[in-house]
């Protein structure tokens, strides 16, 4: 490895973080957008390079300031982090490339520098959560990304974005503080903040009660951030009233990053080191996952605002990821991590399509898009492809992860058939709500018949997302091998 490659884990965070203050200084029209997009693409290329390094299963470790862990701060990238890094930086890049016109409609020119600086900080924070191997660093990065995303959500044109942001801020802060309490309790008992070191020392602690309490605090705190049912109440309004492109970015990665930390803690640190944790984790999260899948899909079926509909569908999809993880098997974890990737593709694509539609329409209600498929056929074709992937139709990315999820459910000794039925029923519910969009768009009567144009950059990224949904459905090699390695790494600590 040459000198620069060795520093990639740190650069992944530092590049967007240092670019943020520079972007604030750029006053010329469009320049902040150009700088933010270039930075995001650079971050994406770093993530791709890191992925190429870790595909053989060996994690990359980086010592901040050359201080050796556990006393120094360690950054670590393995297959699981690489997968999440790809999602975060990829979603940010696609949303930024396609989002200029859509954002220019809601963000005035003088506020642009601040907005894009906040975007880069959100990106830096999320990347930081993923690469960090230090529990307290994760907290700090989590708050950096959260504070920046509150700003992004509050940029929405509707005034209802403001109460939505306030709710997001209150619940996000409570979640982060719960996480901080948990980390404090573990530090109290083990004297370490490094995750790998924690794993060894939790094992040695004689009185495990504080650690068990810590596991509870950390799980609840991160469940709030990850919008796991029933702690999802901040999500629908925040997604609905945020600028469309921001929704595409956040829906693709914000909750997955919190889920990633949850998996890290539950499998690296607690599982098998903590008496009773298997029961606490799997038996406690599985019912929540099932309820989330059913209720999220059911509410989405009756929702009239498309963004809200898709936000509730996200609650259901997070349920799928939790369900896979709560099996505590290799197939289940592969399904969970693979679904993180595939859901980001599908939901990111859908929200990008909505950004394209919203350039033409007045709002995002089903009645607003009546007959719009005749005016913008290509946009709707891409929307349908992403929708099919969300449902899990064979040939799309969503199918692969659902297939693994069903496979994992069938491996269970009891209740497997019921869970398969649940997955099928909720997929049918997804058919219903995606169909409602298609029905309104294809068979409604349009207000005018003029063909509507979409900015070319947005059309390109939208189709890039749609083709990725098809491509990773037919040849899921890369995300699948990364998820399988990730599952091995997570379970490697279980034995």
């Amino acid at each position: 490895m040459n000198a620069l490659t060795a520093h990639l884990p740190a650069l992944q965070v530092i590049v967007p973080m240092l670019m943020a203050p520079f972007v604030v200084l750029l006053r010329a029209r469009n320049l902040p957008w150009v700088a933010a997009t270039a930075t995001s693409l650079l971050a994406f290329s770093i993530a791709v390079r890191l992925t190429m390094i870790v595909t053989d299963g060996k994690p990359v470790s980086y010592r901040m300031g050359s201080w050796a862990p556990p006393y120094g701060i360690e950054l670590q990238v393995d297959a699981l982090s690489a997968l999440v890094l790809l999602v975060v930086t990829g979603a940010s890049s696609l949303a930024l490339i396609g989002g200029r016109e859509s954002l220019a409609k809601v963000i005035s020119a003088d506020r642009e520098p601040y907005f894009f600086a906040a975007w880069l900080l959100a990106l830096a924070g999320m990347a930081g959560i993923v690469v960090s191997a230090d529990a307290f660093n994760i907290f700090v990065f989590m708050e950096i990304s959260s504070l920046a995303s509150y700003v992004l959500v509050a940029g929405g044109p509707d005034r209802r974005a403001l109460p939505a942001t306030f709710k997001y801020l209150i619940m996000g802060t409570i979640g982060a503080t719960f996480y901080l309490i948990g980390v404090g309790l573990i530090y109290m008992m083990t004297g370490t903040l490094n995750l790998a070191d924690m794993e060894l020392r939790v094992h040695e602690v004689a009185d495990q009660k504080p650690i068990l309490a810590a596991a509870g605090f950390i799980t609840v705190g991160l469940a709030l951030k990850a919008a796991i049912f029933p702690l999802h109440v901040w999500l629908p309004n925040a997604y609905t009233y945020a600028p469309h492109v921001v929704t595409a970015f956040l829906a693709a990665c914000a909750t997955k990053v919190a889920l990633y930390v949850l998996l890290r803690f539950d499998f690296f640190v607690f599982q098998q080191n903590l008496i009773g944790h298997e029961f606490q984790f799997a038996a406690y999260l599985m019912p929540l996952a099932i309820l989330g899948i059913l209720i999220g899909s059911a509410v989405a079926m009756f929702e009239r605002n498309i963004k809200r509909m898709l936000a509730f569908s996200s609650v259901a999809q997070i349920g799928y990821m939790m369900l896979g993880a709560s099996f505590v098997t290799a197939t289940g974890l592969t399904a969970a991590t693979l679904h993180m990737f595939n859901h980001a593709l599908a939901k990111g694509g859908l929200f990008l399509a909505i950004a394209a539609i919203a350039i033409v329409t007045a709002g995002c209600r089903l009645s607003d898009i009546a007959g719009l498929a005749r005016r913008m056929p290509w946009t709707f074709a891409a929307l349908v492809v992403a929708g099919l992937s969300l449902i899990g139709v064979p040939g799309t990315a969503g199918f692969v992860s659902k297939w693994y999820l069903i496979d994992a459910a069938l491996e269970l000794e009891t209740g497997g058939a019921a869970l398969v039925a649940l997955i099928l029923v909720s997929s049918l519910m997804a058919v219903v709500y995606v169909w409602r969009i298609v029905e309104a768009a294809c068979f409604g009567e349009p207000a005018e018949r003029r063909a509507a144009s979409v900015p070319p950059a947005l059309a390109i990224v939208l189709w890039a997302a749609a083709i990725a949904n098809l491509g990773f459905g037919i040849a899921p090699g890369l995300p699948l091998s990364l998820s399988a390695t990730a599952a091995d790494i997570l379970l490697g600590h279980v034995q």
Partner: protein
Amino acid sequence: MNILGIYYYWVFAILLMIGFYVVIAKLNLIKKLIGLSLFQAAVFLLYITMGNVEGASAPIYGFGAETFSNPLPQVLILTAIVVGISTTALGLGIVVRIKEEYDSVEEHEIQEMDRR
């Protein structure tokens, strides 16, 4: 372990619950933020107390002290305080914008206006 001997944990738990209660029960958005600050301050207290060693001095070497308190939790909390201040500042900023748009800082009134 007697119950009074660990009174600082009681202070932490009670303060935490008061803050949490205020966040949930109060409808005024500013009061909610006050509750949130209290909630975070309680956690700062947890960290600070856990780093303290009875009879030990501040962790400055060379002044004849034998035992030192653990400085790491204090350093962590310095960072957490900064995070807490940023959150409160951003929250208050959003409340100002809400007041401009809705002319109210009462949650139920805002919900009522949005329903229309």
